[in-house]
Each structure stands twice: as C-alpha cells, then as structure tokens.
C-alpha cells in the first residue's frame, strides 16, 4: 500500500510560490464555494504574507476537520471551481496549500481549538464519522458535554474503514481525533445504538441527540445479488484496511466509476493484483470520480470501459450491454467488486428514511452526515455536522 503516494506534499518555497499565484480577489469566489465554510481566500493570503500560524488558525476556525478535507475534498467541484486564476491558466492548488498548512500545524503541535466553558448541557452523538466529529468539535467548543457512541472498535467511521491509507494516512486521522478528544469529547466504542443500548434510553438521558449516519453499506444490484465471488467496494476496502484480506486473485472486475471505484482500483493495484478491469455506467464525459482520484487510478487500471450496464452473471462471467449503442461485452474475472453506490444501515434505529435521507423525528433529535439532506461527501458531512451542532445550540440556548 505504501508504494503509491497520493500526497505530493509541497515544501515551503513551493507553497509560497503557489500562494503567490493567487489573485487575492475582492469578495473571493473560492471562499463562497466551500460547503464547510472554510475560507481559502483568507488562509492563502496568510500564506502569501508568510503567516503560516494564522493560516492554520483560519482553517481550524471554520473547519475542525481541515486536514482531512485538504486531502479528501473534490476541490474542483467547490473552491477551485470558483478560482478566478483559471482565467489566466489553472486554478490555485488550494488542497495542497491546505495540506501544507495543516501539516505545519501538526508538526508545530498548535492547539487552536479550545474547550468552551461547561454549560451543563449534554449531547449524544450516534456514529463517529466525519459529520459526527465535526458536530462534536463544534459543540465541545461551545461548552457542551459531548458523548459519541460508535458501534465499531475504532473511531472514524468511513474515514477509518473506507478511505485508503494513501488518501488519508492513519496518523493524520488519529491526530485529528486526538485533538477532538482534547476538547473533552467522550467516545464510547463497541456500542451499537438500537441494539446494545435502546435509542429511547439515549434520547432520555441527553438534552439533545445528533444521529450521524453515513451510507455505510455497499449496494448490491442485479444481476449480482446472491452470486459468489462478488463483494461490495465498502466491504473490500474495509477488509483491506483492517488487513483481513491477505491474498487477492489475479483478475478483478470493478463495476462503477465514482471515487470509491477509484479507491478500489488503486488499492487492488497496490496489492499487486495483475489485471484490474473497470466497467463504468457513465460515459467519459459524465465520469463521476474527482480529478484527484482519476489522476491516481487511471494510470493504474489495466482496462477501463465506459457506458455499459451489467445484465447477467454466470459463474464468474459478467455480461454487459452498452447504454446507447448496439454492443455487448463479456468479462470473466476471479473477483467482482461492486462500487455502484451505498446505502444507510439503520435497521436498529426508529427513523423513517426517504431516498436515504432521515425524516424529522423529534424536537431534540437531529441528523447529520449522508442521511442529512445534502451532498454525500466528506466536506458535506463536515457541513451537516456543523449545522446540526448549530441547531442543537439553538434549542438548548448555548452557553
């Protein structure tokens, strides 16, 4: 896994050079386009004026998971899409500047976020993924007593189990979690709410509850349902990350073209799989994966075929048919990985979901993460976590 380095980290000269390309716009579009409310224009300006510590403060101030977003955000859809430098050549590499600054912050052991004065109010958070961590940090800064319940044995949700090491080094995630613990947030692990503890009990014992569920379960679609040698991308990535899979076959067929499919391709090639073939529903001009992911996965994938829908699977052979042209395709592989979307795993919880999004439940229960009404990305999770914290503060009156 270590042989692929997604992180092309900049040195100090390069980061200043990149920041010097910034036009320092009035009313900068980049800052308006971050769902999490990060303020790239301000922290880039700080870098330009050699104030790295101030840049780190600006990032943290607005985004408690700034160093994760720096690595995971599909910036070309947000801040970099707004960058006016594109009118000259290409946008500022905001993600790399943010990575540099948050690395600088970590190396200098800066403690920017501080615990608020205790206000006597208790909030429970169900789940420990990005939206949960974001909500927990915001509430702890406001003086709330925050307890996070996680069904797994480690904190982080999809960040921990779904995102490959080369995209998010474990030490970076651990450090981010550590600083949220430093804010006084309590983590209760191996407790599945709804099974180990009834939801009603949590609701009763806390002044407010934020349910932070992601789309944690990989989707199974026909014709793959019930077939052998088929695994969802989520399961595969989690097993790979946890070191459960030691041996992989020689040929793998990946179905899907989003970021998760790219993660699968890169992870499999890193593990030495000889042939990885990816078949994608979207055609090239509608390709879903982010530029950063494509940059890494495209040179690695052995074959990439666009525009095909799976129609049949017999033994290990999958048949596809093109969406628009008269064409069929048969591919045989030892293992088939489905990266065709994810769904929420919520059987044990008393909520109603409509298109994967949770319906209003009670006065004091809020939702964040993929089940909230928003994009399904890490940066959107940070945003919905922040918003849920804000809504909790509204009903509980804050300090």
């Amino acid at each position, binding site marked *: 896994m270590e042989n692929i380095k997604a992180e092309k980290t900049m*040195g100090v*000269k390069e980061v200043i050079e990149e920041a*010097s390309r910034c036009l*320092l716009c009035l009313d900068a579009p980049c800052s308006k386009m971050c769902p999490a*409310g990060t303020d790239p224009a301000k922290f880039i*300006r*700080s870098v330009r*004026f*050699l*104030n790295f*510590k*101030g840049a780190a*403060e*600006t990032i*943290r*101030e607005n985004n408690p998971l700034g160093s994760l977003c720096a690595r995971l955000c599909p910036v070309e859809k947000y801040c970099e899409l707004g960058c006016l430098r594109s009118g000259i050549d290409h946008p500022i590499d905001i993600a790399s500047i943010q990575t540099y600054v948050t690395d600088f912050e970590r190396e200098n052991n800066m403690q*920017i*976020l*501080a615990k*608020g004065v205790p206000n006597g109010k208790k909030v429970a958070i169900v789940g420990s993924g990005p939206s949960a961590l974001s909500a927990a940090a*915001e509430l702890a*800064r*406001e003086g709330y007593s925050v307890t996070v319940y996680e069904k797994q044995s480690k904190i982080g949700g999809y960040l921990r189990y779904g995102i490959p090491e080369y995209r998010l080094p474990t030490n970076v995630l651990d450090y981010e979690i550590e600083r949220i613990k430093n804010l006084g947030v309590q983590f209760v692990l191996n407790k599945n709410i709804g099974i180990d503890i009834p939801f009603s009990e949590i609701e009763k014992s806390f002044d407010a509850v934020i349910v932070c569920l992601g789309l944690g379960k990989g989707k199974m679609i026909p014709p793959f349902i019930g077939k052998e040698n088929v695994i969802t991308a989520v399961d595969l990535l989690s097993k790979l990350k946890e070191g459960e899979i030691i041996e992989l076959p020689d040929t793998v067929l990946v179905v899907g073209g989003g970021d998760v499919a790219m993660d699968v391709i890169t992870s499999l090639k890193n593990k030495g799989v000889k042939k990885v073939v990816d078949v994608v529903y979207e055609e090239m001009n509608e390709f879903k994966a982010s530029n950063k992911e494509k940059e890494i996965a495209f040179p690695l994938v052995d074959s990439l075929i666009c525009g095909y829908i799976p129609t049949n699977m017999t033994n290990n052979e999958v048949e596809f048919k093109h969406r628009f042209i008269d064409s069929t395709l048969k591919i045989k592989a030892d293992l088939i990985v489905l990266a065709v979307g994810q769904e929420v795993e919520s059987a044990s919880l008393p909520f109603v979901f409509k298109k994967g999004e949770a319906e209003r439940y009670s006065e004091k229960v809020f939702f964040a993460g993929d089940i909230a009404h928003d994009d399904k990305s890490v940066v959107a999770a940070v945003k919905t976590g*922040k918003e849920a914290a*804000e809504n909790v*503060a*509204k009903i509980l009156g*804050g300090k």
Partner: protein
Amino acid sequence: MSPKYLEGNKMISKDLSIEFLGVKFPNPFCLSSSPVGNDYDMCAKAYDTGFGGVVFKTIGPKDYVVDEVSPRFDSLSKESTPFVGFKNMEQIAEHSLEENLRDIIRLKNNYPSHVLIASIMGNNEKNWEDLARLVDKAGADMIEMNLSCPQMTSHAMGSDVGTNPELCESYCRAVKRGSRLPMMAKMTPNITDMVPVIKACLRGGADGIALINTVKSVCNVDLEKHVGLPIVDGKSSVSGYSGKATKPIALRFLSQIRQDPDLKDVPISGIGGIETWRDAAEFILLGASTLQMTTSIMQYGYRIVEDLSNGLMHYMEDEGVDHLSELVGLASSSIVPAENLNRDYIVYPLIDNDKCLGCGRCVISCYDGAHQALSFDEKERKPVFDKTKCVGCHLCAMVCPVGAISKGEIVFKPGRTKKEIKL
C-alpha cells in the same frame, strides 16, 4: 452560522499596544503619509481594518496649490513579481486645508482610541508654525514633519530641505512654537549620512524620528518611445521609490542611527517596504517602535494589517514576550562596524547530495561570481567541491533552488585563535 457561534474564535490574542512619544498606540501599524491616507473615509476604513494609527496625508500651507500629473506611478518587476519597487510622483494632500482639518476633527471624534498623526509641510518658518497650531487645534495626537518628499515642485519644500541640518532645525523650532504635541521629523534617505540632520532636528525640539521617506528614482525607460516611465506628455521625472526593494536601505539607516551613542534611545517610527509580519519584526528588532506603510497597502489593501497583527502576535508568543516594547532594539547591537567583525575563520558549505537535483546553478555562480571552488560531475550531475579554492562566501547556498547547501565545517585561518563561533 449565527454570530454567537463565532465566539468560539480561538485566534491568538496578544497585546500589541506600544507607547511612542508618550502616545499609546493600540498596535504599531500605521498608514504612512501618502495616497493611502488621503481623506476621512480611507483613514476610517484603515482603522476599521485594524491599523492602530494613521499619518494623515501631508497637509501643506494654505496657498500651496497641488497640481498632479497623470499617470503618476511606475513599478519595478523581477521575473513574475510586480511591485519589487514602486515609484510615485504624487505630491502632498490634494484637498484644501479646511477639508483636511475637518477630516482630522471627525476622525478623532469617531476614533478616539486610535492614533492620528498629522503630517505637515511648510515652506517657511511662519507656515510650519501655523500648520502645527492648526492640526493641534483639530485634535491630532502627534505631528510628523515631512522634511523629505522627493517629488515636490518647490525647492523650499521636500527632500532638499531634509538634507540641510540648519533648515531642519529652524523648522523644528517653528513647529514646536506652534504646538506642544509630540513631534517626529521624517527623514530622507537621499543623503550619505542622516545623523547630522537627526541631531539638528532633535536640537530643534523633535521628540522622535520617522524614517525613511522614498528614494529618488527613475524606475524604467520605455524602449520604443525612448522616454522614462511613467510618461507624462513625452517626459518623465525623478521621484520617490518605495516598497520591498527599499527595506534594506531603511534598515541600514535605522541600524546606523543606533550605532551613534547620542541616538541610541531616540524613538523611531520605521518605514520602508513593510509587507509581512516578518518585515515588521525586523524593523522592531532594529529599534523601531511604530511602523508605517504605504506601498504594500497600495498593492494589496488595508487588509494586510490582519496578517501583520496576527503574525506578530505569534512571533511574540514564540519569543515569550507579553509586551511589544520588549522586542524593540533586540538586534540593534548586532550591527557593528565592518572592522569589528570576526575575520578569523571560514565556514565551508555543506552540500546535501540527496536533496541536490543536479541543476548546476551553484557551479555556475561559484565560477562566474565567486572563486571557482565548485566543478560539475557531468555523469552524476552533482557539484564537486574543492575546499582549497573555497572562501566560504556561500553564494552557492543562496542560488540553490532546493536549499541543499548549508553551513558546514568551520576552519580557522592560520595563526588565529580558535574560539566558539556563533553561526
């Protein structure tokens, strides 16, 4: 996000206030007397953005008519960096004396805890004295005497005055007759030795010194039209040069003053190419208590004060000080006459071949600009070091694009006494 939520703000907070000529500044950052402090609205915006003080654009005598040229600026670039230096032909305040005084009154009414310094310029003792009286009455906290503007159209005003100690002394006396406000005299760098002028000003009653004003310059020449820039109806003129390129000149005067035993403690407001908190800290370490800026504001806006303040606070934190005054002059004693430097040793460069990309820039510069101590291994694409030729100048380290060359072995010259060396 609700405003209340923003109270979780954990940006660093340190006391940047400093006392200068008996006046307390909320922070050391001031607009210098220039186009950036031209009227009420501009100064108010500067205060609102975070500047601690303003030196209001120089007010001249009632009968002095300002008649500006167009265009009036030029800038020196190097590679893709604009504004390495900046040339300005604008003169003193364009508004009438009455308008300027009215703005000063309003600014002091609405910003009582911010500092307002009135910059004035007369052309005889009488109107220096009158101007001092008027700005005092309008409520200014301090007076700055502009003895140094290089683009005035009258030889009785501007930098020619600032090179004449007798004239400076008599004008300082005149200002002190007009007002008892604390007063600083602003120096021109267009002079070999500033010390006699400063001493004359102090004799005349100046309480402090502001330095430097702009450097006389011609920035660029248009190669097709054969005219200096900026072109004003086919001609151009010598005028003041400012910005980053002038910082070393300002720091030179600043440190030189501190070497004179009589001027060791004279309060100084530093000016010259300040753009980042690092520039600010350099001026402070060499003895400036307050700082003034224009060019960086003209290029980037008043907002530069945000990173100046925040960065300086972090620096104070790193240095372990709670008051800015503790940093003033900490580096002054490090600048000594050249004959007092230790010449007993050579420190050789140390090349990190792992970092080296093999560009050979060090070899080129060492051969063409130094002592031919580096040659190039063409096969390996690495510099080869010949210690017998190296004089330890470290030009190689300065041109290396990846910082692969550092300071290595220290060798004492024959017959010199070994001692511990501070690199």
